[in-house]
């Protein structure tokens, strides 16, 4: 099955997915030679985290048919939890530098953010989306979209009301000298953020492909009625999906706290980036979103490097328009067929 067949390889290379991946790799290689390895490092670190946010977005769209515009707010919740958990730990570390906490503290912080993210996801499903689902499934995509916009406004303003609009950030999670690879210095925080992203993406992939519950999630995304017919309880799966995808966003938010301090609308940038990713990758395509995240992040880094930092939203948007014109289902195709007819 895993034998490389020349025909298939050639066909893949000529497909939209093949072309875009190869182009991205080539662009990364050229930019790295031109401007130095920091381009590659930045793109990879940001791509990892963007992958977490985008996967959640793709999952919520694929399984629940919700075009989620509040996803950035779960990222924001992650930053907020991380700030309030890590600040006291940090004070402790600075007075007791040798304590266990200096190694475990950041991990505790990120796990806490993950849990709170999951709880926030369940709460949103129970209090908001399941309420709409109970009442009417007509025009679901549009109505749920409007709900997510409302939810986003509520959460942003809730943050402002209860925690204030100031920047709540930390200097770093991990102290110690930066790593140096290929003559670039990578701070420990960045390296850990990337490592964490890889770990989470991998475990998520294993979960969704090989476990009974993971298969049930895929089944619901492919045919909800079929899932009911084989005995899969929808409510549980929908709740779990929401919990997972919000937890992913919160993990991203927490592990990037050293770059993005917590403030009410900190989630907007990751939200837009993640939407770029899922549109490029194909709506609802969770694994495509991982690859797409690296492509978008590379694009952003290259734009900042060569054109200027004001353009980092313009170039990806322009690319989306081009892609949608030529390939409306996204580069990697979508698992969601006729979603708007449902």
């Amino acid at each position: 099955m895993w034998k490389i067949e020349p025909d298939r390889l050639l066909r893949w290379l000529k497909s939209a997915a093949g072309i875009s991946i190869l182009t991205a790799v080539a662009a990364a290689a050229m930019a790295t030679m031109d401007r130095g390895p920091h381009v590659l490092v930045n793109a990879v670190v940001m791509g990892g985290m963007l992958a977490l946010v985008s996967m959640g977005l793709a999952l919520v769209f694929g399984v629940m048919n919700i075009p989620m515009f509040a996803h950035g707010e779960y990222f924001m919740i992650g930053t907020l939890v991380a700030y309030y958990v890590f600040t006291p730990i940090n004070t402790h570390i600075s007075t007791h530098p040798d304590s266990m906490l200096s190694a475990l503290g950041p991990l505790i912080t990120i796990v806490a953010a993950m849990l709170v993210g999951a709880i926030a996801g369940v709460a949103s499903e129970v209090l908001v989306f399941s309420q709409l689902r109970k009442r009417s499934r007509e025009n679901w995509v549009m109505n749920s979209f409007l709900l997510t916009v409302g939810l986003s406004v509520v959460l942003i303003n809730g943050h402002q009301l209860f925690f204030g609009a100031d920047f709540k950030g930390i200097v770093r999670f991990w102290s110690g000298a930066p790593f140096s690879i290929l003559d670039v210095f990578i701070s420990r925080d960045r390296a850990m953020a990337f490592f964490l992203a890889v770990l989470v993406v991998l475990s998520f992939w294993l979960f969704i492909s090989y476990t009974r519950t993971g298969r049930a999630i895929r089944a619901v995304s492919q045919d909800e009625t079929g899932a009911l017919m084989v005995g899969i309880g929808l409510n549980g799966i929908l709740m779990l999906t929401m919990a997972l995808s919000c937890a992913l966003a919160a993990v991203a938010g927490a592990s990037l706290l050293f770059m993005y301090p917590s403030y009410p609308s900190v989630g907007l940038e990751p939200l837009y980036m993640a939407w770029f990713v899922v549109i490029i990758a194909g709506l609802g395509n969770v694994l495509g979103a991982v690859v797409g995240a690296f492509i978008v992040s590379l694009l952003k880094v290259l734009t900042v490097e060569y054109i200027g930092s004001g353009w980092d939203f313009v170039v990806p948007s322009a690319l989306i328009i081009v892609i949608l014109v030529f390939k409306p289902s996204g580069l990697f195709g979508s698992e969601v067929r006729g979603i708007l007819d449902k």
Partner: protein
Amino acid sequence: MLLEVKNLNAGYGFLQILREVSLTVDRGEYVALVGPNGAGKSTTLRTIAGLLRPMSGEIRFKGEPIEGLAGNKVARQGIAYVSEAMNLFVNMTVQENLSMGAYTLRDKGLRKDRLEFVYALFPRLVERQNQLAGTMSGGERKMLAIGRGLMSDPELLLVDEPSFGLAPQLTESVFESLNALKKRGMTIMLVEQNVTKALAVTDRGYVLENGRIELEGRSRELACNDHVRKVFLGV
């Protein structure tokens, strides 16, 4: 009685389709539900399967009321529903679809037995094990849909239009499989467009028109009934 439906009223929103439908299916029986297009045959099956909430009426399975239970709960009670649209998981392989069919079975040995049973019933599916369900032909998909239903080791199989869109030869083989199932003691309720065929293979039948049960009886007798002959067979 394995299944007892009493005075069932059901429909979509304010539109009532089924009116006071009553029917029964005994253990081991092969029962046909026939009727013209739009009579409400599929609506009846959907309501029994828990995909549509009835407006009123009773549905009892093994003596227990199941009306108003969600579809997944009905499936867990032992009713497998093979819908008209089939509702397969199109991006999963044949094998994965079948294993999803056994979602409610925890016992590994039993799951394996069921898989062997289904593969023995539809040898065609063995050849297609690793093909995506969405890329299979209509007939193969029908077999897969029935096979997936059987994976949960159901006590009652509800089949909606197994012959729809199939070439005569394939129709024949699907009906043969259903016959084989019946011989092994499976209880089947069959909805079918092809009235002659349906009444030829089943034990008993119901005729549904405009959401009401107009006739019921032994299939052999229904096939000779004047009303049935006039409405469905045009004689």
